[in-house]
């Protein structure tokens, strides 16, 4: 009896409250129901019951949720649709080393593989159409809309567990009254928000509550922000959070702000708030994790690894940090270290097929074969259906490493039997078939891999190679385009693309022979000999060829002249003569600039080599040399020589065409006079317009290339010409008038001396020329072109330095 008295037996509300504090939520809620049956108007019990229920269904709002297709592609909140690389999740940095699809494989969505599977890691690739198609086939299917998935599930699960009448009838609840009552409104809000999932009502409650609290309670502002976020009103959520931050700086607020900005695809702003938060709460894992994830998604792997390490020093058992570190180590070629991290995860009690497989891969890479096979076997025995394809795919990889290609083929086939859409297995299988020389089989496998995952680099590139070898250049070009989207820096792809693009182009090509003479100012004999070996660094511009500038090299010692011939693919300049089609012409300027040796060291003496003019033109285009001269450009206060060649390209008209044009012209004139008699004509020969039409028919006959032989055509045209001249005798005065092409009252003979205006313009030209040359000699002219040069050079220098530093890290 005495012993029993030691225990205080709580009853009623106190007992329920104690149970609630001990987190025995179901028991507490059951007792609450009993209490409420006794006294239905007991507000404390009512609130406690709501708290019990909402605690049972609490979800961490801070975690990112996957964005559905609807939100991804019909997004209206995006601020910058074409962001610079590195400032948006859609455009991660690709220039960083080791971040390419070859050294670090990508997920189905085109994102480099990360340590853990988490939402918000899918990249928007391609069009909506493509995404919908992928979602239908692949296992990584995304929900069409994000707001549905999680909330739906919550509702149904809680309905099953509580099989009783709802304690709040939202339709009849006086929201204004209860919402502004500070004693119960929090419980009510959480119940409505988490358990019932009625965001609109929750928003109403929060609105009342924040009004009742005089707009200076951070709690309600955060809750309002959550509601707005759920409702998709991102801007309002941001406003609420910022104002909450002014009242009280909390980890939750910073994390929610980060989430809001991530949703807006503004990772830099998100990072700013994470950093601010870390200044207030150093070593907070939530904020650090957010930062690390963002860095990873932006492609800044080194930064993300640093942050993950910091997280581990704070919280040594953070699995996400360990897994991400391990993955990064594995792909940067340190499998032994990665293995240690994976082992650590295993020691913490996690034991999944994926983990075993990862350990197997690490062991394989660090050449611990016995352990590798063991782990792979264990992974195989514990795997579930959703990872089976990946496991078998990795087993295939191990078998390739062992060299057993038959087994590897089999493993890939099994992977495909588990998941017919496993595009990686399809590609690898295709490569093995390709290796065996079964090209058609390989091609169809590549194609099916691409139909499952159209954005993948490997499939696109490999299939493009196959097509290129078979001479199907159009297909190859299209696939290469896709591959270059996935991996913009791939060198081989770019080269192949250049070759294929050349086949599609149709530009004018002209053969030109140029000769440049170098003159060294002889300071002393020794220097010349030394310098003759070097590259003179002459660049060419204004030619739209594939490479914009090329350098010339002296090959023999003591040679002072160098001949250089080249084919030019020329596209026209801005100045273009519209009036003269079909004799349209383009003027082209070639500028050869020596940018290594200044004008005191190197002089250019440009002239065109004497070669027959026919050689410089082709069927359709005629080539005309206008002038060549030297000018000076100044950069970095040094003057350099620049040789300029000016040429003109004009379209040729075949002889036959000109004859026919003339004939047609004459006939037309005659017809005009026939139909519109300006003054009366006395025809010696009886003509009328029907005859002239006959003449036209004859001309048409001449113009048809296949109708007559060459000789006959000439004969006929001569005949026609004489007839026409005979016919047009009467209109000859008019011809004279017309062909001279000047007003009737003007003097027909041209003036022998230049008019004053001409004289003036010549003078100014000369003056300009002198001024330019003088200023060039004084080395003060700084043309805009020279400024461009400077920029280029600086850029290059930086590049060179970077290169050496990077290599140190590679080799040491």
């Amino acid at each position, binding site marked *: 009896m005495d012993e029993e008295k030691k225990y205080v037996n709580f009853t009623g509300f106190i007992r329920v409250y104690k149970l609630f504090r001990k987190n025995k939520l179901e028991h507490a809620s059951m007792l609450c129901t009993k209490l409420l049956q006794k006294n239905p108007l007991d507000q404390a019990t009512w609130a406690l019951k709501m708290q019990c229920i909402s605690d049972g269904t609490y979800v961490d709002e801070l975690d990112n949720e996957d964005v559905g297709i609807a939100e991804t592609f019909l997004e209206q909140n995006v601020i910058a649709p074409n962001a610079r690389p590195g400032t948006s999740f859609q455009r991660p940095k690709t220039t960083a080393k080791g971040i390419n699809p*070859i050294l670090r494989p990508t997920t189905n969505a085109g994102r480099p593989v990360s340590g853990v599977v988490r939402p918000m890691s899918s990249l928007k690739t391609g069009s909506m159409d493509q995404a919908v198609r992928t979602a239908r086939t692949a296992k990584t299917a995304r929900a069409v809309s994000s707001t549905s998935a999680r909330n739906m599930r919550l509702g149904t699960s809680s309905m099953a567990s509580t099989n009783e009448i709802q304690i709040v009838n939202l339709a009849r609840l006086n929201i204004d009254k209860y919402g502004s009552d500070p004693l119960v409104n929090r419980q009510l809000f959480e119940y409505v928000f988490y358990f019932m999932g009625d965001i609109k009502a929750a928003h109403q409650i929060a609105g009342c509550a924040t009004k009742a609290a005089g707009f200076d309670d951070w709690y309600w502002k955060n809750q309002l922000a959550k509601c707005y976020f759920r409702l998709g009103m991102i801007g309002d959520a941001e406003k609420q959070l910022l104002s909450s931050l002014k009242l009280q700086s909390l980890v939750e607020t910073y994390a929610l702000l980060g989430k809001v900005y991530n949703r807006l695809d503004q990772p830099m702003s998100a990072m700013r708030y994470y950093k601010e938060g870390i200044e207030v709460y150093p070593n907070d894992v939530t904020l650090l994790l957010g930062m690390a994830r963002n860095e990873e998604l932006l492609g800044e792997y080194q930064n993300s690894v640093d942050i993950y390490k910091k997280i581990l020093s704070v919280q040594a058992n953070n699995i996400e940090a360990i897994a991400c570190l391990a993955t990064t180590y594995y792909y940067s*070629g340190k499998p032994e270290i990665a293995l240690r991290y994976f082992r650590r995860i295993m020691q913490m009690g996690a034991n999944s097929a994926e983990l075993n497989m990862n350990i197997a891969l690490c062991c394989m890479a660090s050449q611990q*074969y016995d352990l590798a096979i063991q782990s792979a076997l264990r992974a195989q025995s514990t795997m579930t259906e959703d990872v089976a394809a990946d496991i078998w795919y990795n087993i295939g990889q191990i078998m390739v*490493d*062992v*060299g057993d*290609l038959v087994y590897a083929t089999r493993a890939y086939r099994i992977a495909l039997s588990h998941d017919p859409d496993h595009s990686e297995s399809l590609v690898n299988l295709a490569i093995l078939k390709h290796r065996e020389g079964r090209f058609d089989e390989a091609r169809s496998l590549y194609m099916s891999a691409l139909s499952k995952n159209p954005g993948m680099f490997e499939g696109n590139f490999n299939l493009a190679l196959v097509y290129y070898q*078979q*001479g199907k*250049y*159009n297909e190859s070009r299209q696939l290469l385009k896709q591959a270059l989207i996935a991996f913009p*820096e791939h*060198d*081989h792809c770019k080269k192949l693309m250049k070759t294929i693009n050349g086949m599609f182009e*149709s530009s004018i*090509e002209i*053969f030109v022979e140029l000769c440049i003479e170098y003159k060294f100012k002889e300071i002393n004999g020794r220097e010349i000999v030394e310098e003759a070996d070097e590259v003179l660094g002459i660049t060419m511009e204004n030619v739209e060829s594939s490479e914009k500038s*090329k*350098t*010339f*090299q002296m*090959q023999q010692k003591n040679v002072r002249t160098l001949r250089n*011939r*080249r*084919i030019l693919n020329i596209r*026209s300049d801005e100045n*273009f*003569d*519209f*009036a003269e*089609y*079909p004799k*349209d012409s383009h003027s082209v300027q070639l500028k050869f600039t020596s940018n290594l040796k200044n004008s005191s060291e190197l002089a250019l003496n440009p002239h065109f080599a004497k070669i027959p003019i026919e050689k410089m033109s082709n*069927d*359709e285009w005629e080539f005309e040399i206008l002038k060549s001269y030297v000018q000076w450009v100044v950069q970095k206060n040094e003057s350099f020589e620049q040789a300029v060649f000016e040429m003109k390209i004009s379209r040729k*008209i*075949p002889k*036959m*065409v000109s004859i*026919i*044009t*003339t004939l*047609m012209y004459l006939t*037309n004139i005659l017809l005009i006079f026939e*139909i*519109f*008699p300006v003054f009366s004509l006395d025809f010696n020969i009886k003509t009328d*317009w029907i005859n002239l*039409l006959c003449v*036209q*028919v004859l*001309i048409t006959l001449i*113009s*048809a290339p*296949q109708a007559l032989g060459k000789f006959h055509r000439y004969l006929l045209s001569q005949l026609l010409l004489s007839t026409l001249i005979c016919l047009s005798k009467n209109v000859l005065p008019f011809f004279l008038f017309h062909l001279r*092409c000047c007003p009737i009252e003007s003097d027909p003979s041209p003036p022998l001396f230049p008019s004053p205006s001409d004289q003036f313009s010549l003078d100014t030209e000369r003056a300009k020329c002198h001024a330019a040359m003088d200023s060039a000699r004084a080395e003060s002219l700084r043309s805009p072109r020279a400024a461009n040069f400077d920029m280029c050079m600086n850029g290059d220098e930086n590049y060179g330095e970077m*290169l*050496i530093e990077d290599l140190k890290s*590679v080799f*040491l």
Partner: protein
Amino acid sequence: MEASNEDEIIGVNSVENEESADINQEQKPEDSADNLNSSSASASHDRVSSAPRRIELLDCNSLNALMYHYFSQEEYAECKSLIGEVLSKYAGRNEFALNLRGCIARIEGELDEALDWFTQAYEQSGKNHRYFYELGRVNFLLGRHSIAVEQLEKAAKAMKHNSKVIYWLARAIYHLPPTKIKDKTINPVQMAAEVLKTSPALSSDVQLVGFLGKLLEELNDFGGAVAAYKKGIELQPDNTEMMIRLGLLYLRNSNVDDGFTMLGQCLAYDPTNTDAILAIGSIMQKHGDHDVALNKYRVASDVCDYNGHLWNNIGVGLMAREKMAAAHSALKKAAFINPLNYKISYNLAVLHDKMQLYASALHYMKQTVDLAPKNAKAIGALAVILSKLKDAKNARRSYQKSLETKKTRAVLMNFAIFEYHQGRMQDAWGYLQEFKSLKADRDEDGGNMNSTAEILEKVLASSLDKS
């Protein structure tokens, strides 16, 4: 004469296709667009004496120059809209516009459309055979090589001076399947080369020369290919691609010096050309100049660090400089990128052998043998590793297997030494004699091996005498 292109007269419609080639002049009265028949012409004739009618001179070619300007400035969108306007205004009579539209469609990769436009232009031009050139090119890009050949042949007849026709013809022939005519297989490569050789423009067109070089290379005509490439470089001294091909051709025919010069010249023009760097680095490594080669690879690894062969070469260079750990990671990276390349796994095996990690060496050598089962050298190396692992039985079997595949001096020598260590003096003697009967290859240094052979022979002779 120029003026004749511009003004045309209205009321005359029976004239179409007056001109043969480039210019096609169409005329059409704006005010009477629908009654385009001779009756309108006669009607206008009747009206002559009455009040003068307002006339407007129209020329469907008036905008051609602007079109071409847009085209040459690569402003395709504007060009297309202009062409669309012109074609709808003149009911598709402008041949030049059709041709240009075809070119744009081809550049944009819509080949079926391009085919359509060029066909229209062809019809509009009064079946000008020059359009077979464009049609042939489009069909070639579509992979319909036999049609392309037919069309380009027609075009070649029509345009005798255009070297490009020959180039595309040769390319199309190159892709034809080998056919049998009159019990004689016709090699398309041979055919294409012959087509090129007959062209008069061969001496002046780099594209033709380059393609001829490639074809001759495939036909194993070393001298011809070298001459072709040399001609190409003479025509265009800064064509780096041709330099690389010539350099590699020299290397393949073990003319190392010329190859080296050519690749060096290429690097002078384009110092970051990864292909040239790889090739020149490998030559340097062959001559034992690993430091310089590694320096060269630095540049290349910055451009493409995802090139497996590059990392393989770096690994070999580091291995030669006795930096085993670095070499190991470089080779592992190479193997990660190119898991199916047997050379990389061979190098890895050699590296592990050097580090005296024989089990790993065996693993990689086994992978090599699996990937390249016909490689006698790899099987011989497998035997050496097995003997180091003291597995005499399997070592002997793999030596025998290697000799079955191909008899090489190095393997025979190794086998002789192995049998000597195993105490089978008689067998060792036999293999040694076989070794001596084989002639040394030109690219292996026989001096070292010969001296070993002599020592072994002495030892064996003495021991055989004893026994």
